[in-house]
């Protein structure tokens, strides 16, 4: 009996027959097309710990998984012994609206949590691209974020505490269930975005926010790249309750119009600004924006666009869904806010065909670049990634390939170059997971 067969038998006795998947049943859990030998679906903390302990004893690698929607993030693994799915750990463990905190299991779908909180007029201010399957644990492991980060920040600003199981099967926790806490090292920050390479998240405590009384979206179309910076600066300087400020290029706009069925004013660039407040407050803010835009000296007057409330909803949900556009290479680029316009100019200058889709969280300097695969082969795509990297490097930015055909991923540095701090990262990985059981090779620098 091979080691893995032996492990399968042991795991079966832990999670039960029907929750240990193999062969065809395991196929939907593939990591970058690499089929897992075993998929374990534990139902509680003790089972998670047992799965990890048994895998460790059998020298098996473990790939933690939530809903799988963000699983393409990370370098392609060589082999996948066990996928540990937390999808059955989906309970809300604590929620006291008056404290504005909640504790949930890692496998709880984000959408489900928002529903529960929404009933109390609250929400977790995380709005990453998500499907119905997207779990809290997956969002945190990938540090996924969305447009609302402009006002509310990212997971590092919203997660108060975390319980994890380390590779040796020990459960440990960090942080707490209160909104302000310096008791002990802030390991919570270390776990956020660590792609399951240090430990498997079990429970997370979030700070929640009151839902805004209402929202209003305003579109501002710019006639060219030269107008981006003045408009962006105006938005960031105006006194507004602005929770999102997105910038799209024409290709991204066209996709959004096609996907949403909502008419979008076609132009070289479009800002989508989302304001908070009741109707009177947002109307006042829109007026202030329009007035300020009229005062700017632009290459052509900026055109503002209003939409019906229902259309606004559709625009935002379709915009988020574009992250999952099939058949494209999706890169996340980080830049200084003020370099966004220069970056757009550089991408324009590449005159790519088909054109790349640019979608930026403009107030944060985070850009999603989507390179359509089209009929391009692997080589063409690699050349295009090189062109992108040159644009990013010129502005001292960074980029991560979030999604790409596996053949492309295998041949590019998914996370980009490491910095002078990489020895610290390696030492942390070695400290947590000395035998490299958890998600080996998938994170930055092959961690």
């Amino acid at each position, binding site marked *: 009996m091979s080691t893995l067969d032996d492990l399968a038998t042991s795991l079966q006795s832990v999670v039960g027959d029907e929750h240990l998947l193999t062969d065809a049943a395991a196929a939907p859990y593939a990591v970058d097309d690499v089929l897992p030998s075993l998929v374990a679906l534990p139902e509680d903390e003790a089972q998670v710990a047992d799965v990890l302990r048994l895998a460790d004893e059998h020298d098996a690698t473990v790939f933690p998984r939530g809903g799988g929607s963000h699983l393409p993030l990370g370098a392609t693994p060589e082999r996948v012994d066990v996928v540990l799915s937390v999808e059955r750990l989906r309970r809300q463990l604590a929620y006291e609206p008056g404290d504005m905190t909640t504790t949930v299991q890692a496998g709880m779908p984000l959408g489900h949590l928002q529903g529960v909180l929404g009933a109390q007029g609250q929400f977790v201010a995380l709005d990453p691209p998500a499907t119905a399957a997207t779990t809290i644990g997956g969002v945190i492991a990938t540090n996924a974020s969305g447009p609302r980060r402009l006002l509310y920040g990212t997971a590092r600003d919203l997660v108060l505490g975390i319980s994890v199981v380390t590779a040796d099967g020990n459960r440990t926790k960090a942080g707490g269930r209160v909104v*302000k806490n*310096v*008791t002990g090292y802030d390991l919570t920050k270390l776990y956020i975005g660590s792609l399951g390479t240090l430990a498997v998240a079990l429970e997370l405590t979030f700070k929640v926010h009151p839902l805004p009384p209402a929202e209003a979206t305003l579109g501002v179309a710019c006639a060219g790249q030269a107008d981006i910076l003045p408009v962006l600066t105006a938005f960031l300087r105006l*006194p*507004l309750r602005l929770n999102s400020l997105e910038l799209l290029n024409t290709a991204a706009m066209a996709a959004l119009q096609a996907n949403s069925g909502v008419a979008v004013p076609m132009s070289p660039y479009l800002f989508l600004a989302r304001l908070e407040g009741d109707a009177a407050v947002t109307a006042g803010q829109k007026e202030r924006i329009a007035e300020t835009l009229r005062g700017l000296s632009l290459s052509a007057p900026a055109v503002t666009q209003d939409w019906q409330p229902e259309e606004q909803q559709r625009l935002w949900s379709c915009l988020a869904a574009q992250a999952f556009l099939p058949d494209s290479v999706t890169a996340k680029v980080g830049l200084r*806010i003020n370099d966004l316009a220069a970056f757009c100019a550089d991408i324009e200058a590449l005159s790519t065909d088909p054109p790349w889709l640019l979608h930026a969280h403009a107030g944060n300097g985070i850009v999603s670049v989507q390179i359509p695969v089209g009929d391009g082969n692997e080589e063409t795509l690699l050349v295009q990634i090189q062109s992108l990297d040159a644009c990013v490097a010129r502005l001292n930015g960074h980029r991560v390939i979030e999604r790409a055909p596996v053949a492309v991923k295998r041949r590019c540095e998914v*996370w980009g170059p490491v*910095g002078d701090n990489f020895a610290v990262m390696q030492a942390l990985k070695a*400290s947590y997971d000395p035998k490299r059981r958890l998600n080996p090779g998938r994170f930055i620098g092959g961690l």
Partner: protein
Amino acid sequence: MEQSVLQELAAIVAPQPLLTQPEELLVYECDGHTLDKAPPDVVVFPTNTEQVIAIVKLASRHGVPFVARGAGTGLSGGALALEGGIVIEMCRMNKILEIDYGNQRAVVQPGLVNLHLSLAVADGGFYYAPDPSSQGSCTIGGNVAENSGGPHTLKYGVTTNHVLGLEVVLPNGDLVHFGGAILDTPGYDLTGLFVGSEGTFGIVTSVTVRIMRKPQAVKTLLAFFETVEAASNAVSGIISAGIIPAALEMMDNLTIQAVEAAIQAGLPLDAGALLLIELDGIEDGMEADAQRISDICQQNDCQNVRVAQDDAERALLWKGRKEAFGAIGRLTPNYYTHDGVIPRTRLPEALTRLQLISHRYGLRIANVFHAGDGNLHPLVLYDERDSEEVERVLKAGHDILQACVDLGGVLSGEHGIGLEKKNCMSWLFSEADLDVMRRVREVFNPQELCNPNKVIPLRGRCRCGAVTHDDTPDHETHEAVAAAMQDAHVHA
């Protein structure tokens, strides 16, 4: 410390002198936590990163402990040279290296005084949000070490939410960079891990921070209540209404008296509690929010609501809050403070527990705290010349922290664990939890020379430092109190 090490140290920072005379070292024998004291062997004042690297390498080579120090305003003994050695005083590295309004960033040296950053960017319409009460003297480097908070962190977060990048001299002398001006640096969030590590992971030599646009409008209200319970209920009411004020601070009667004696702001001396509530943001809708807050206070038996009419009055109201600790000095030669946090909804129970503790030990406790985020600041009044009273103070402090933990809270919201509370860590964390933290520390600080023996007790070693009191929780008493509280709660 060997004479040769001192000579090498002197050569590194020449012509800056070293401090080695006992009278020179007196001021460095403690920080704002004055119950424990230990003098360093030497204090050195580096003026640049290269000197910090050289000092750290020297210390590492000779096995000499070292601790970085900012303004020494910390409240948990974080800057105390517990095992002697070198205090690396960072106050001369106090320059602003870069201000970039377009990108909403500033790069500063660690010795920069917190408030000086806000003043420097004020003309550009910006400020640095974390505002500890000591912001007129505490340094950004110290804030990074302690992950400092302040009254306005309710809405804007604490230091860690505003620090984007760090240049760090590791305890082996390596210079590394974490994060930076650009968000979402790929890899582990070492910036987030480092902030709040209380000087045990290395020494920061440059900090990249977020600076924020000053709010268009600010409105400051004072609401007076007959009892702290009524004020607590108003806090819950405001939060439940979906309003997140920029600040939501409470003072009890004892504090009101001390503050009024100090600054004559016209506070009613008979009020049981006051709430200092500040709204900020856009002008539109602020009046309506202020009115809603005022209504909520009225519904909770508020005696009176006073709205600051101008900046001068607003400044006066805040002066009372920011200088409350100092004002308490009028009532007592010494005070001891904790900053445990509890879930906001447990505030009334927590304050009742504090009263019980006050009665049990025959000590006056003044309360001035961040009510909005449940961050208590009970000030236990005492006279350090009375050693028996000091013993009671320590026991009361212990009981206060235990009460916070009992109520689902934590040991510290912003002051840090340091030396003071490290032996209480096991109330919240299992040995396995603490062991993970120890191992992370060993990654940075394997020789345990960089601010040794703080935050978490060393593995298998019970070196309790200068702390002499018994840290073992008195479970019997606490369970009895907890039962009584439960009972009171049920019948309330």
